[in-house]
């Protein structure tokens, strides 16, 4: 029973982490390796707003999400747009940006265990004998809401439909008057906001540390690769697979292997089926 409950919670947190990465890659074929940095930055922005400017918690969360969205859009508009299409340059450039931001924070003194965010609602309830705090229940609710919102957004909204158009066939979409760069910009901003949202929901359960940036990036990549890069349904299903695999490993083997599961999932999936479980990319594009 505890495997089921913790597995569901872990899976939803993985889905939250990964969905932004998956969105950006799915739409603009841009592997955003600054994802982890954006996650951590949102945490620090919320913390700063709360502690220096003394703003209301909800307001500072909204403000910091907007700021993260702007940062993401700026990264695309000023840097990544110039290396679009060169896969390796995209990876190196976005990874270097993320590295610069994370290590900049570390240099700026944001390290150690002193930075924490308050939980939304205090307290916990017991489900069949296992105490679960409200933050974790909220996490599952917010995770579900985000997935639903994204589905609705991409099916019933002009911009959302345009995003899907670009994702499916860039040339045809451009012929219908959809601006590819503009949509990539929107995707990047949206992806950053989703990374920020994940941070806001997940960080109150621990400390804000720079190292989280790296592990978040790896988890996001793991989920997206297992699910198939660019496939949102796949990403969510993969989040559940990796989430449960991690919890089972921690329970029956050792907690050290928590991250090893993610690494091995990436390597094994790439070797056996590089387009992932639900990827729709042509086999020839990624394998000889």
């Amino acid at each position, binding site marked *: 029973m505890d495997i089921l409950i913790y597995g569901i919670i872990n899976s939803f947190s993985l889905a939250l982490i990964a969905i932004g990465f998956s969105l950006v890659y799915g739409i603009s074929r841009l*592997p955003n390796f600054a994802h982890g940095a954006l996650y951590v930055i949102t945490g620090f922005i919320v913390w700063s707003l709360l502690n220096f400017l003394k703003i209301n918690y909800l307001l500072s969360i909204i403000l910091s999400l907007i700021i993260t969205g702007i940062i993401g859009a700026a990264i695309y508009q000023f*840097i990544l747009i*110039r*290396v679009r299409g060169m*896969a*390796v*340059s995209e*990876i*190196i*450039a976005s990874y*270097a*940006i993320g*590295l*610069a931001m994370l*290590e*900049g924070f*570390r*240099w700026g003194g944001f390290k150690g265990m002193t930075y924490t965010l308050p939980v939304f609602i205090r307290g916990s309830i017991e489900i069949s004998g296992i105490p679960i705090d409200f933050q974790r229940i909220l996490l599952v609710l917010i995770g579900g809401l985000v997935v639903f919102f994204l589905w609705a957004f991409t099916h019933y909204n002009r911009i959302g439909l345009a995003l899907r158009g670009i994702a499916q066939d860039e040339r045809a979409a451009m012929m219908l008057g959809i601006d590819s760069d503009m949509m990539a910009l929107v995707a990047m901003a949206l992806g950053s906001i989703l990374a920020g949202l994940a941070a806001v929901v997940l960080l109150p359960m621990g400390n804000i540390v720079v190292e989280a940036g790296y592990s978040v990036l*790896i988890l996001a*990549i793991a989920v997206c*690769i297992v699910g198939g*890069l660019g496939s949102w349904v796949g990403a969510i299903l993969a989040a559940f697979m990796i989430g449960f695999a991690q919890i089972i490993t921690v329970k029956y083997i*050792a907690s*050290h*292997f928590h*991250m*090893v599961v993610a*690494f*091995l999932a*990436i*390597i094994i999936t*790439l*070797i056996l089926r*590089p387009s992932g479980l639900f990827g729709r990319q042509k086999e020839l*594009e*990624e*394998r*000889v």
Partner: protein
Amino acid sequence: MEERRKERLDRGIKVCTEGIYAISSWQEMGYLLLPRIALIGGMLALPLVLPIYWQRVISSVCIYSLLALGFDFLAHFIGLVSLGGAFFIGTGGYIAAILNTSLGLPPVLTIPVATMVGGAICTLLLYPCLPLRGVYFAIVTLMYPLVLHRIIEALNVLGGTDGIVGVASFPNRWIEQYGILVIVIISLFGLRRLVNEDIGLVFRGVKDNDQAVKASALSINFYKSIAVFIASALGCLGGAYLAHIYMWSGISQFALDFSIIPIAATVIGGGGTLVGPVLGCFILVPISELLRAFGTLRIVFYSLILVAFIVFRSEGIMVYTERKYHQFERWVEV
């Protein structure tokens, strides 16, 4: 409105020196030899002219150069972008450390053995990933050092988080520094020769049009694994050397530093030239050493340099210098 564009023409002497007839005049031979002699002479003179503190840096510059050479070779001649420099360094370092501490072999033996065996192990482990391309290969190689790091940590094997200590060092600093300098020079010119041989042509074929290589009844995986073996052997050599210099081998050898700096050096120096990455290391590693006092700010600094170069000057220093050396430029009216 009059418009002008820049016209670039090869210098006369460059054209004259392209064939075998370059040996017919001292001037032409000088034109060819000068940059090469300047590079080799400059590198060999370094341990003599540098102050004592900077001499420590020479060896690490050379180790990074070996990695950068391997990266450039794989990325620009085979088309495999490997972000796993740390994987090679770690494998080489651990093999050398184990051979030295448990079998008592001297560095003269451990380094070549670690190079060959390490190269073979890395190639074997990477073999299943060889059919992957582009982003996929890059991600999988980025994961290898991280997963080994975690596994060693979790299983507490190979000395666990403390690493293997008590590895023998070199007899004196002259042997240490000249050894690695000569190795870098040999591998640099060896690789330059290799990519212009027949096999280099196949390598480029694998990069540009693998279907054509396949159609010529050549096994792509075979050629890719040869290339990966060469690059990983270079990395393992660097790692083995590193283990002997610091008399220690541990999980921090799987750190991201070894994956990032060679890439940055290649981008700055100019990809596809093989000399560029070495020059890039000679620029970047001392800068990063200078900034050591600033802690992690140096990572910020070289990440920003990397972004600036990749976005605004993606050709790199070496390609730029080569162009200035071989060609003259003038403005012409259109």
